[in-house]
């Protein structure tokens, strides 16, 4: 019988039937400081060990400062100290701040070659869906589940449904994976993917680099989906070859044989299907308080009266009030205060290159505060080698150290009340980047265009 890529990975990881649930084996468990302390406490209280420290990797990302100097927030410091203590006590490998390998958990997994096709991957973070770009089944879990995986290396799971998102056409000049996924979420809605694992397919996806594919899978959760998947191919294998945790020598050849079978069979059935044509896609900008509230850069802020559904109308009214936007306002007339280029969505080397191309030879507009936060220490070092730091700094951007930073503002990088931000991150929820802050999600190139223009601008006209 024809199976989808998801079903192949799922079937290979079912350990047992556990009271009607599939007990699913976890091949890689990524851990960070925010969602793990209570899980380690739980292990200690029950006298349990970490079952597979060899399959567990920890890093510090959510609340680390991105400026130089010691951490000043005592709560953040205690939380980082707790992770160090826990990793030490339970024998878990930690990529500590300053190790040169630290970074956002969803950036360092692929970078280290830990994220591999066909694996099951979990992390106490909803953006774990990112790793699906390699054809791995990767999903976010809560702290109780973190504890469960630490103790048993398994999770009892109900089998999710499947959705195929088929991209067609040719991605126009100046458009990116971020625009593709924002358009897809606009179409699916923020709850359309609930209970589903989404497989992204089609020529525009195959044409993407791994960085682009990671951006797409990253935002699966913003459509409500459990996970996102892209079948591995030569682009995937070329990215992986030679990375520290990737197979080497004859093991590499064997792995390639296995990985080449990891694609959905012709005729495999999905529970839902969505088509997204990218031929006429334009750069996307969100105007509201969830990622589905999105339109093209040449569009206007919508009028609540145009929405038939009463729930939706109320949500739009509420969002516009929070965002302080009037219906009918052209997005290119919306001025910004801050620019954030970073996050597990868009802080990889290719993202920084795309932003730097727009910034080069230009200046950050007066009154705009713009920061670049590389996704990892490695990305930062590579960008510096390529001269990108200089491009950003001479344009007036601040160049920071790696971390989650202003994506969720757990560290000192936050919006003040009323500030408006062009952000390459993944969530424009109320207060996400700081209480009262207003977030507009865009691609790195569009964030750069906004930075130099002082308002949202069509990057295609700046190129």
């Amino acid at each position, binding site marked *: 019988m024809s199976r989808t890529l998801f079903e192949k990975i799922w079937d290979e990881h079912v*350990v047992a039937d*556990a*009271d*009607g649930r599939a*007990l699913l*084996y976890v091949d890689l468990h990524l851990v960070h400081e*925010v969602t793990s302390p*209570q899980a380690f406490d739980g292990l200690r209280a029950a006298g*349990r060990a970490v079952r*597979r*420290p*060899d*399959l*567990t*990797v920890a890093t510090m990302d*959510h*609340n680390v400062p991105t400026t130089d100097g010691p951490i000043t*927030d005592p709560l953040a410091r*205690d*939380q980082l100290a*707790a992770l160090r203590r826990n990793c030490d006590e339970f024998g878990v*490998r930690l990529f500590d701040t300053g190790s040169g390998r630290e970074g956002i958990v969803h950036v360092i997994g692929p970078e280290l070659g*830990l994220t591999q096709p066909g694996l099951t991957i979990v992390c*106490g*973070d*909803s953006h*774990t869906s990112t790793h699906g770009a390699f054809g791995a089944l990767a999903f976010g*879990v*809560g*702290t*109780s*589940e973190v*504890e*469960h995986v630490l*103790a*048993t*290396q*398994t999770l*009892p799971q*109900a089998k999710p449904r499947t959705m195929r998102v088929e991209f067609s056409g040719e991605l126009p000049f100046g458009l990116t994976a971020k625009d593709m996924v924002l358009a897809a979420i606009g179409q699916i809605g*923020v*709850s359309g993917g*609930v209970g589903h694992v989404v497989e992204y397919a089609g020529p525009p996806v195959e044409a993407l680099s791994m960085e682009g594919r990671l951006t797409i899978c990253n935002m699966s*959760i913003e459509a*409500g989906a459990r996970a996102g998947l892209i079948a591995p191919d030569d682009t995937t294998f070329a990215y992986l070859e030679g990375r*520290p*945790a990737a*197979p080497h020598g004859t093991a590499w050849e064997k792995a390639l044989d296995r990985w080449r079978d990891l694609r959905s069979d012709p005729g495999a059935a999905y529970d839902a299907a969505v088509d997204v044509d990218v031929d006429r896609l334009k750069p996307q900008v969100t105007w509201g308080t*969830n990622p589905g509230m999105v339109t093209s850069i040449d569009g206007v802020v919508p009028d609540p009266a145009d929405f038939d559904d009463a*729930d939706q109308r*109320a949500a739009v009214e*509420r969002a516009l009030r929070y965002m302080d936007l009037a219906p009918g306002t052209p997005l290119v007339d919306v001025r910004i205060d801050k620019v954030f280029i970073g996050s597990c969505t868009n802080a990889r080397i290719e993202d920084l290159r795309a932003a730097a191309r727009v910034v080069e030879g230009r200046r950050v507009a007066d009154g705009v505060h713009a920061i670049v936060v590389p996704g990892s220490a490695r990305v930062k070092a590579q960008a510096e080698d390529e001269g990108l730091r200089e491009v950003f700094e001479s344009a007036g951007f601040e160049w920071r150290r790696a971390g989650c930073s202003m994506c*969720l*503002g*757990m560290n000192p990088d936050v919006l003040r009340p009323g500030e408006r931000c062009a952000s390459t991150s993944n*969530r424009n*929820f*109320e*207060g996400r980047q700081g*209480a009262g802050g207003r977030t507009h999600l865009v691609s790195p190139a569009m964030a750069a265009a906004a930075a130099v223009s002082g308002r949202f601008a069509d990057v295609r006209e700046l190129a």
Partner: protein
Amino acid sequence: MKALPRVEGRVAVLDRADVDTDQIIPKQFLKRIERTGYGEFLFFDWMKDPAFELRRPEAAGASILIAGRNFGCGSSREHAAWALEDYGFRAVLAPSFGDIFRSNAIKVGVAPVALPAADLARLRIAVADRNELVVDLESLEVRHPDGLAFAFELDPYDQETLVQGLDDIARTLRHAEAIDAFESQHPARFDARALA
């Protein structure tokens, strides 16, 4: 976790869609390393508004929350479920839930009850008149004292977890031999401890 065969009590209504976990518990409270004490920060920013639904007199002392579709979307933070539980909620009724929130809620002993929007609309009217409700996790039924009743679905695994207050890890460890056997046939692809 405490057994939760039924929830009986007052109801608070938060009638808006796509309430994300950033609203339920904002990020500044995720730096704590404890599992308890999050209730006072529930809906921290929204609570500042005197007109916020949960500050209305009729919402006082509620143990059941009626919410909109896709409740608990977004971040995986279990702190959201901890905050609801610590505040006093034992059940949330909504047309749908964010997947991770839903599973976190069950682990924490807050029953996520999915009911069609039309049923919830009738329940909202009923509790506006008389603020009492029973959520029966054994019979899988929501009942209002004036006679309104709706059946809901919960898969047997989740039902058992809630009703009996089971420890999920102990439950999984009953399959320890199967895990051992699986691992012997499923080689590790790397050793994270040996990474340079």
